[in-house]
């Protein structure tokens, strides 16, 4: 496979409006594409000085101003899937935050299987530090000190050495399997301050999965989330679900969930306020169900997705031309609301020697664009498209605001053309 890369520093052709042979209109967007309808001004980033005064270490994305364009050949036998697949994972764990008073009195933790792993992390690592000998577990009619109830006790040093970045003064205990399941009361007479208690049940058949219908959206667009519980392969009804939306800057919004007839719960979120810092958004769901025998089953789950402010969009125009003997340039019109560095990328498909449509090359071009009608040119270097010929298709077309680390437009199949 040819992996030569073309890099151009200052590209005279990046904004060229002449000498393009073919004029085209982008294909209509499909329901799985993400296309801005109306543009919005990008949020002003949190000033570094303000962040420093607030004691906040904010992320520092790069803001390049030099135009850059690259391309490289792709393996013909590795087709590109241009539609992102939302990620979902089955949860067997839950968290709860408790006060010192509650810890002194005893905190009831529902357990649905033997061998649970219980982590206690104090808010005040000095005053709130606990030892395994200083906590007790009361379950199934017996009371045991932590070091007797646990088959393994881990402290911060051992857990961090194993790669688990637990908070300071965390104490982790894995309960002995012979203690069984059911409700357990965790008690710490010397508790001080507040604690996060994390319960993980690696052997439990009860899982909760939250499935979103997408993993990226534009401000104002809606994401639908279904939350369901399973006992092995069989669905079980949930009793209650709550949760909140967390933006990258830490701001949170409480969510309402509604029950479905099959025992699952659903919610819809439509962020309207942009985050002041880049990053991904999280949707935290907290659930309560039961094991069918009267014992509570608690699970928490997190869904992750990207939210972009639509501060630019492709205007639907695309001009093509032959670049040199075998290269192909595709100039794409971009309507810009807020000045930023925008990148356009895409995969050029074409027909191979056997007549099959195969991926030929990937190209990406970026430049700092001011508000107005602008252009970015995807430049497929001759060496990158050597293995394919007409007809061509431009797939997985994406427009990114690079300093915002955001994807503002995505089209699975954007363009078909025969001759550049």
């Amino acid at each position, binding site marked *: 496979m040819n992996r030569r890369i073309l890099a151009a520093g200052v590209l005279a052709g990046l904004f060229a409006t002449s000498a393009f042979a073919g004029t085209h209109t982008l294909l209509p967007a499909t329901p799985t594409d993400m296309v801005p309808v109306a543009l919005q001004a990008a949020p002003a980033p949190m000033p570094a000085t303000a962040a420093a005064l607030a004691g906040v270490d904010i992320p520092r994305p790069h803001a390049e101003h030099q135009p850059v364009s690259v391309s490289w050949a792709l393996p013909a036998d590795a087709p590109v899937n241009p539609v992102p697949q939302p990620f979902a994972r089955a949860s067997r764990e839950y968290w709860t935050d408790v006060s010192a008073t509650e810890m002194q009195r005893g905190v009831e933790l529902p357990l649905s299987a033997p061998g649970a792993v219980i982590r206690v992390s104090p808010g005040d690592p000095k005053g709130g530090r606990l030892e395994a000998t200083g906590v007790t577990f009361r379950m199934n009619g017996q009371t045991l000190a932590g070091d007797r109830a646990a088959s393994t006790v881990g402290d911060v040093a051992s*857990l961090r050495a194993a790669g688990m970045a637990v908070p300071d003064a965390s104490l982790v205990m894995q309960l002995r399997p012979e203690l069984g399941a059911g409700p357990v009361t965790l008690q710490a007479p010397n508790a001080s301050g507040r604690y996060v208690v994390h319960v993980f049940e690696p052997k439990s058949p009860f899982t909760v999965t939250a499935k979103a219908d997408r993993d990226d959206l534009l401000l104002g667009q809606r994401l639908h989330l279904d939350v369901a519980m399973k006992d092995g392969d069989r669905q079980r009804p949930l009793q209650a679900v709550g949760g909140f939306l967390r933006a990258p800057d830490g701001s949170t919004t409480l969510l309402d969930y509604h029950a479905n007839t099959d025992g699952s719960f659903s919610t819809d979120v439509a962020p309207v306020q942009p985050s002041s810092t880049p*990053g991904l958004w999280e949707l935290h769901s907290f659930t309560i169900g039961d094991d069918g025998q009267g014992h509570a089953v608690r699970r928490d789950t*997190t869904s992750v997705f990207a939210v972009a402010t639509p501060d630019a969009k492709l205007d639907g125009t695309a001009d093509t031309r032959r670049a040199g003997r075998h290269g192909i340039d595709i100039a794409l019109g971009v309507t810009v609301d807020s000045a930023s560095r925008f*990148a356009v990328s895409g995969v050029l498909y074409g027909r191979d020697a056997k007549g099959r449509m195969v991926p030929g090359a990937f190209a*990406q071009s970026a430049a700092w664009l001011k508000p107005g009608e602008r252009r970015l040119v995807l430049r497929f270097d001759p060496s990158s498209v050597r293995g394919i010929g007409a007809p061509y298709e431009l797939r997985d077309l994406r427009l990114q605001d690079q300093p915002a680390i955001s994807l503002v437009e995505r089209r699975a199949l954007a363009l078909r053309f025969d001759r550049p």
Partner: protein
Amino acid sequence: MMLTGALALASAGVHAATGVALVHGTGKQTDAYNNYWQSDMVEGIRKGLADPNNLLVVNCDFDQYMWDDRAAGCLAGQLTSFIQNRNIDRLIVITHSNGGNVMRWILSNPTYDARYPAIIQRIVKVDAIAPSSAGTPLADAAIAGNVFETSLGWLLGYKTDAVRQQQVGWMATYNQQYLLGTSGRPALPVPFRDVVGTDVVSAVWSSQAYCGGYTQSVGLEITQNWLSSCSDGFIECSSAQAAGTLWFKDRTRTSGGQVLNHNQSRRACFGLPSILANDLKG
């Protein structure tokens, strides 16, 4: 190769050379030579170079998101200086753990920073040791509690954006939105070759457990609960193989067919430095 970018070789006809850059994982490093890789590992790899001076040990702040200027920007700066100062035209990058994610950001977003294309042009391959390409459940387990801690206004000294980024859901989203090289996404511009640790030996009677330091057995007993049966104690095999192509699984190349836990895969254990050194010549 056509190049009209920010970087050109010092002058036509200059004798260029092969170089190797070692890119550390999560953490803010100022002396990765001693604190992350250790001398035996670095010097073992150096033996594969015709010019032993053509080795760079990167020191950056990988407590940040991969795209942060203190992470990818710092890495790009150090690689650019190394290439220019040593006239490197054939660069092999060896990454460990989250260092693979920072390197993959550069390879996947070649226009994000004008320095990236010239770096990519010189890279002949990335040897990614135990990369957390699909994240690790241990990051989820460690950080999810911070949702409460954040809401309670608690300040945690051990919370980093790099850990947040390595949550399984975060990496899944990044892989689909901004990164290349995973299944269904366009291929990376250079080979990204995975070295995968498949198991952990922590028995006190096994000499194998002591290479790289025996400090983890108790912690591993607990953390293994979050991981699949094939893992190096921190990264599941499926995550280490999620991007690029498999180079080798530990047992197939290490001396005695030993496994490499996550700590051992950055240390001079079971012939790993020689494997990496020999690869510099290929």
